[in-house]
């Protein structure tokens, strides 16, 4: 077998890497529930495997999602990952053709240019030399960009780059050296044996003209091998663990394993799959408005991985979901954050005896304003006006004050306390016999829809109002107001409701679009998910958002969440209105029959 001692660092490093990675993977697989395990087994022998492979190709090698968010950053990741991958594949093909053997030492293709000087026996040898040089050049551009990014992240349009742990430093610096060393080693070898192509060959000629190439090239192969060895050994202890982990993660997801509310094995794999690309830091308003660069997932997940989560980091996050929306690995970031908060939460079964006795009314529709809406009474008034006008048979469930939906407690990791409230509300809702449950608060919406298992339709008022309009139960006047619409986090990214509010506005007003809309919507700063922020900080965020949204001087800044309305009102010179108010204001006054308001009806009764 062809061998030289310099291949040892590489070979040993690779063995250690394989050992650790498989040990870790084995641990994870073992911890899965038996149901998940059987899903995984099934997926191994189904078309899921192909789907997963395709996704692995797109995301782990081409980094398509990073490309979408930031093309320069995408290119950097792609040239490194895909370029390296191709170098390995093409290198293997080349050496296999050359040696005619099926099996070679793992180092043989890597150091091929050291071992083989006579290319004449290789079919298509010129083609391979050219291709391998091209690929090396491709990877080198990625390395140059990566180094550049460390020192000048603004070039990538990024305001921040992540800070390094010790394992990361070893891995990062050795990675920087790998390809330049390979480039030098191959070039110097070429100066001696004329083995290079347009890239390494030319460089070799130049270097050879003033360096004693024959005396030194051997040491460069050593250095190259050492750099590889160091990288392999430090990889599992660095953020580069994301490379093998992401592959496994994609496969596991495709097998149908889903995230749960608890921190579990899948969460752990997700945590390890984060490359700390830093996209989340750039998208987070705690960074952009408040200059807080401590809490974003890039850091938070690192703390989780190394078991160093601090309460103030776990809780200082609005759960706005902007980071999750743009995370190229698709990690369920809010889930992990909330799950980790449970480690700090004091959660006990409270004594809820003070809750009011159940007073239930029979109706087709339940309207639940939510506690936030009680603080913005014009929204609930608009809703009752609309429901009266449309002659809906409804029960205003929390007219005399709400029993909390439970969501704020859950966001702060207090599931048991929330469960009590959920039971209380659920009993009443089912007793009313209603078929549709409408709420004005997107925070309530999510919990009623996802946690209550009511078996009836749960709708946000923007959806329900659109339905009333479509069913011709509401006649609205046209206005020429220019309205910009703000997507509340919980309604948009949280519940995927982007179109209904827009359609509702568009039918009677001019809808103005804005850069920060839909998935890219900003958080108003009022979030209940964050218990650490001060009101001052919230106001700074709200002000920044208002400036962005009102840049085209609209007549109205519309939203569909009482909390957003409150946050904006203090900071906006443009009128802030909930979508229900806009609808209520344009209810056609030419309605033939007089509307008897519920208030009057009750008074007369």
């Amino acid at each position, binding site marked *: 077998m062809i061998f030289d001692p310099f291949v040892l660092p590489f070979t040993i490093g690779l063995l250690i890497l394989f050992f650790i990675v498989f040990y870790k993977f084995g641990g994870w697989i073992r911890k899965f529930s038996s149901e998940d395990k059987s899903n995984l087994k099934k997926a191994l022998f189904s078309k899921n495997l192909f789907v997963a492979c395709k996704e692995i190709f797109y995301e782990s090698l081409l980094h398509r999602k990073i490309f979408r968010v930031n093309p320069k950053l995408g290119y950097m990741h792609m040239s490194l990952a895909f370029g390296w991958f191709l170098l390995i594949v093409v290198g293997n093909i080349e050496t296999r053709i050359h040696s005619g053997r099926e099996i070679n030492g793992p180092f043989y293709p890597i150091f091929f240019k050291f071992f083989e000087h006579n290319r004449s026996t290789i079919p298509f040898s010129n083609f391979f030399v050219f291709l391998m040089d091209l690929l090396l050049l491709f990877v080198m551009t990625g390395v140059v960009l990566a180094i550049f990014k460390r020192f000048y992240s603004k070039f990538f349009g990024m305001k921040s780059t992540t800070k390094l742990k010790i394992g990361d430093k070893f891995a990062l610096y050795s990675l920087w050296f790998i390809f330049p060393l390979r480039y030098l080693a191959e070039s110097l070898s070429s100066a001696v044996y004329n083995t290079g192509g347009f890239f390494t060959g030319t460089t070799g000629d130049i270097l050879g003209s003033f360096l004693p190439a024959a005396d030194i090239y051997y040491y460069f192969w050593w250095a190259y091998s050492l750099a590889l060895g160091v990288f392999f050994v430090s990889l599992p202890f660095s953020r580069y663990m994301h490379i093998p982990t992401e592959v496994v993660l994609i496969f596991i997801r495709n097998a149908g394993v889903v995230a749960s509310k608890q921190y579990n094995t899948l969460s752990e794999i997700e945590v390890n799959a984060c490359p700390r690309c830093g996209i989340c830091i750039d998208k987070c308003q705690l960074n952009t408005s408040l200059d807080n660069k401590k809490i974003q997932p890039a850091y938070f997940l690192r703390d989780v991985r190394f078991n160093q989560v601090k309460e103030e980091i776990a809780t200082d996050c609005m759960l706005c979901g902007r980071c999750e929306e743009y995370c190229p690995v698709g990690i369920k970031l809010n889930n992990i954050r909330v799950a980790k908060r449970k480690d700090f939460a004091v959660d006990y079964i409270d004594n809820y005896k003070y809750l009011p006795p159940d007073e239930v009314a029979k109706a087709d529709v339940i309207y639940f304003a939510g506690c936030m809406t009680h*603080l913005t*009474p*014009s929204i609930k008034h608009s809703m009752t006006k609309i429901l009266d006008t449309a002659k809906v048979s409804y029960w205003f469930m929390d007219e005399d004050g709400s029993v909390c939906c439970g969501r704020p407690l859950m966001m702060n990791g207090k599931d048991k306390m929330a469960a009590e409230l959920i039971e209380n509300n659920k009993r009443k809702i089912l007793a009313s016999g209603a078929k549709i449950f409408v709420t004005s608060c997107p925070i309530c919406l999510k919990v009623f829809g996802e946690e209550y298992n009511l078996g009836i339709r749960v709708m946000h008022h923007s959806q329900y109002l659109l339905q009333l309009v479509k069913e011709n139960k509401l006649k609205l006047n046209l206005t020429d107001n220019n309205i910009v619409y703000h997507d509340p986090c919980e309604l948009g990214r949280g519940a995927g409701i982007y179109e209904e509010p827009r359609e509702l506005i568009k039918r009677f007003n001019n809808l103005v679009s804005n850069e920060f809309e839909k998935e890219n919507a900003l958080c108003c700063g009022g979030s209940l998910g964050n218990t650490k922020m001060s009101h001052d900080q919230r106001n700074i965020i709200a002000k920044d958002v208002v400036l962005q949204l009102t840049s085209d001087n609209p007549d109205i800044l519309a939203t569909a969440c009482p909390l957003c309305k409150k946050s904006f009102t203090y900071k906006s010179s443009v009128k802030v209105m909930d979508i229900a108010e806009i609808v209520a204001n344009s209810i056609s006054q030419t309605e033939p029959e007089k509307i008897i308001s519920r208030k009057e009806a009750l008074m007369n009764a």
Partner: protein
Amino acid sequence: MNKKVVVIGGGIAGMESSAHLAALGYEVTLLEKTDKLGGHLLNWEKLFPTMRMGKEVVTFLNEGVEKGKVNVIYNAEILNTKEIMNGFSITLNNNIVLESDAILVTTGYDLFDASKKEEYGFGIYDNVITSAELEEKFMKGEKITTSDGKIPKRIGFVHCVGSRDEKVGNTYCSKVCCVTAVKQSIEIKEHLPETDVYCFYMDLRMYGMHFEALYRESQEKWGVNFVRGRLSEACENMDGSILVKVEDTLAGKPMKMSVDLLVLMVGFEPSLGTKKVGKILNLQFGVNRFFKTQDQHTLTNVSNVKGIFFAGSCTGPKTITNTITDARAAASTIANYLSGHDIHNRIMTSDIKATV
């Protein structure tokens, strides 16, 4: 030739400082954005703590302006200013250009827009009004009734609306609203002896001369009730009365109470004029968005721009008494400056600055 001073804002501070500057021999031009002098004072019938008429103070101030032959320009709006040799050139609407050696900014405050505190229901429930609206009723001699013309049996006053409230972004105390609530509740009792009056407060700030006496009188003579606790929300009952939810922090329990009329004691905010003029003149704003004076104790009328000075509540909430004193102080600070003292840098040369 006499030196010239332009005073921006014809409220209490602008009027009184103009009178004093004129008395000191300067040629004074007073710019007023409306067609009347007097500012907010025009809207107040009786003044705390003596219950004397606001009108009397207006008359006093007018007299000063007239005697001093102050050149008053009404409906004035500043378009831009330029620094010229030892002074300023100011362009107004109507293309009037004024030159001056010093500028005094007295742009004052606006009342907090109570509809921003939506949970208190102003603008939504008919029986929620502001302290300014109540005063207007006193001023016009209107009967105090609920929206449907009935005599209210119970009235609530809510202190600190838009003040001392981090959520709305105003953390300062507006200083005058506590004692105004006391004054107005006494007036209610004078008009409607049968009506119960409740004040919902966080702390009562009765710091001024005779304020405490007025507060005691309101309890002992008039039977006004004071409940310590911040209102969390107000909603409307079926009959149009207002249900307030408040935590009584002395009794330590949440309580609900229905009132027929709810009066919101709205606080001070930097006026729109303060914001505009500040931008045009490059003046610094402090943390509370009022103008920032060069020193908290010693240079209370001095701005960051040489030759520009402040008086009145454009630097923070003030009572009428304090505003008048401040206006006179500003006049003498300007006299000091125009006679050649480097007042803007006075503190720099002393040891004090080093420790600040």
